[in-house]
């Protein structure tokens, strides 16, 4: 079975946490996590930890900038960074 793309993994996780679920797929990268998907700040924290767990990286241990995460696209960028960190050398 082919592996999920980063975008697909993030979409799956985002939908676990979204209170408002838009109809279109894939999710538009510009969707606001708070305003469009109604993911409040504590949920976003939980979601970010889950992403780290899926990528095999402890988000607390890495220096990823998390303060500016506002959109689905921002999360995909964070995930890509974590993915790079999680790969064995």
């Amino acid at each position, binding site marked *: 079975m082919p592996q999920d793309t980063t975008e697909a993994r993030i979409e799956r996780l985002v939908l676990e946490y979204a209170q408002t679920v838009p109809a279109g797929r894939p999710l538009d990268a510009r969707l606001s996590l708070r305003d469009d998907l109604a993911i409040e700040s*504590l949920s976003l924290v939980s979601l970010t930890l889950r992403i780290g767990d899926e990528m095999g990286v402890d988000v607390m241990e890495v220096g990823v900038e998390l303060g500016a995460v506002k959109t689905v696209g921002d999360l995909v960028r964070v995930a890509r960074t974590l993915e790079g960190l999680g790969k064995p050398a």
Partner: protein
Amino acid sequence: VAHPTDIRAAVGRKQAITFGAPARPLFGFYHPPKDGPWRGVGVVLCNPLGTDQTRSERTYRHLAERLSATGFACLRFDLFGTGDSGGDEHAPGLVRAWVDDLGLASQELRARSGARAIALVGLRLGGTLAYVHAAERADVDSLVLWSPCVTGAAFVAESTRLHKLYVRMEPQLAAAKPPADDGEEALGTFLPRAMIADLSRLDLLQAAGRPARRTLVIDGGNFPGRDALVTRLRELDAAPELRSHPGHKFLITVSHRAVVPDDVIASIVEWLGQAYPKETPAHEPSANHGSAPTPPHGERPVVFGASHPLFGILTPAAAAHARPGRPVVILSNAGCVNRAGPHRTYVKMARRWAALGFDVLRVDLSGIGDSPVAPGTQENVPYPPSALDDLSDAIQAAGTLAGSASSPRRVIIAGLCSGGDYAFQLGARAPNLAGALLLNPRTFCVLDLAAVESADGGAPPTTPVQDVPRALRSMAERGVETLLVVSRNDPGVAYVDVHAADAMRALAGTPGFRRVDVESADHTFTPVSQQQLVSDLLTEHLVARHGG
């Protein structure tokens, strides 16, 4: 005002009770089985901890109501040091005490209902504690483990990591001071080092005894250790059944947006019902109503309300410091969080103020916490249509609870978020008001919530923003001592600051009005140091303005 409290509503009957050892009073609600033949079984619900507790409170109430309606007796209660029970997180040996609390709750439920068997239900850490208790006692017949933490260490790691990441993602919190005591923060709850050590010794896979004759394990999604736990239960001959109910978001959702996981509740009720047929003769209330220790701080659950029952808890002023005529403080819900307040701040402040000589009434508005929903309306709404009437009833009840009908006491109304909005509304209009304490009001019941929460703060306001500073001034001028406490950039006041800047600035120096901006805080004052700071601020204000 009714006391003791018996609340009857369309969903059934319940009674607020205090039980446990004299020095360790526990608060809870007893839900008797619905009239008619019943199942002869009592179900004790074991709370989780911290934000899990806050966010599952409504789900637990629904579960208790459903169990009662299908012929079970049920007890839901707050563990010692949490919710409305006595004590706080600094009490020594809390984890051991929590496990023992379940024994006291089972004993209380047997005494009240005459139940011949006990079942335990626990969510997250509540499941962990329920398992440990059941394995030690070997007298629990059925055990429901709902996404339990397989180890206490896992709970500590997850909740403290969430807190640390939250602080990193909310830059304004970065400067919050660490707690004065040795321990860790977990999103508004303080975990002392000794408690962490005790929690870290809990490991369900190492528990030796069979916890129950039959067990139900509910996987709510993202459940580390699930398969190992089920395997272990099978080894122990505990007849585990695994059911998956993924997709529920109530534990990660702010209370007023959360959806009760009805299918999980139905699954638990159905699984318990399978084992216990409804064949016990009609339930006769036991003459032994269990133990009745002195409630924490002499608190009294009260039911009041002119048109429908409303629930609250009165913390009476310490006799040594009480003074006749001193106003009663009323705390109104923050959003849909029950009367304990976010991070249990209302409980702590009420007890602190009572020790200084203030009577304090913490109330649940209609359809929030344990106040039944008003006829024809929906539950779990932060701005219920009857809110102002509810609070008028609370003012009347508070005025006569510790005073007399002919000489009602004056009132100070206080609250966070929507509670602050109602303090503003009542401060502007209610008679007999001595003061108003507004913590991070969201809309003042004047502004458009969507506009306030929109990032586009520059858009022209669609509501009369100028009414806010005008009413604040008017409150002060008519003798309502007003304290506005605001986390820096909190959306409600920030919106007014932008759109009515001159009028807000002009409030400075108005006699009877004071505004304090709190740095390094979020909307609910999650950092423990900021909770303490706010409590200190309000306490100093109360003593200075109303302590005479």
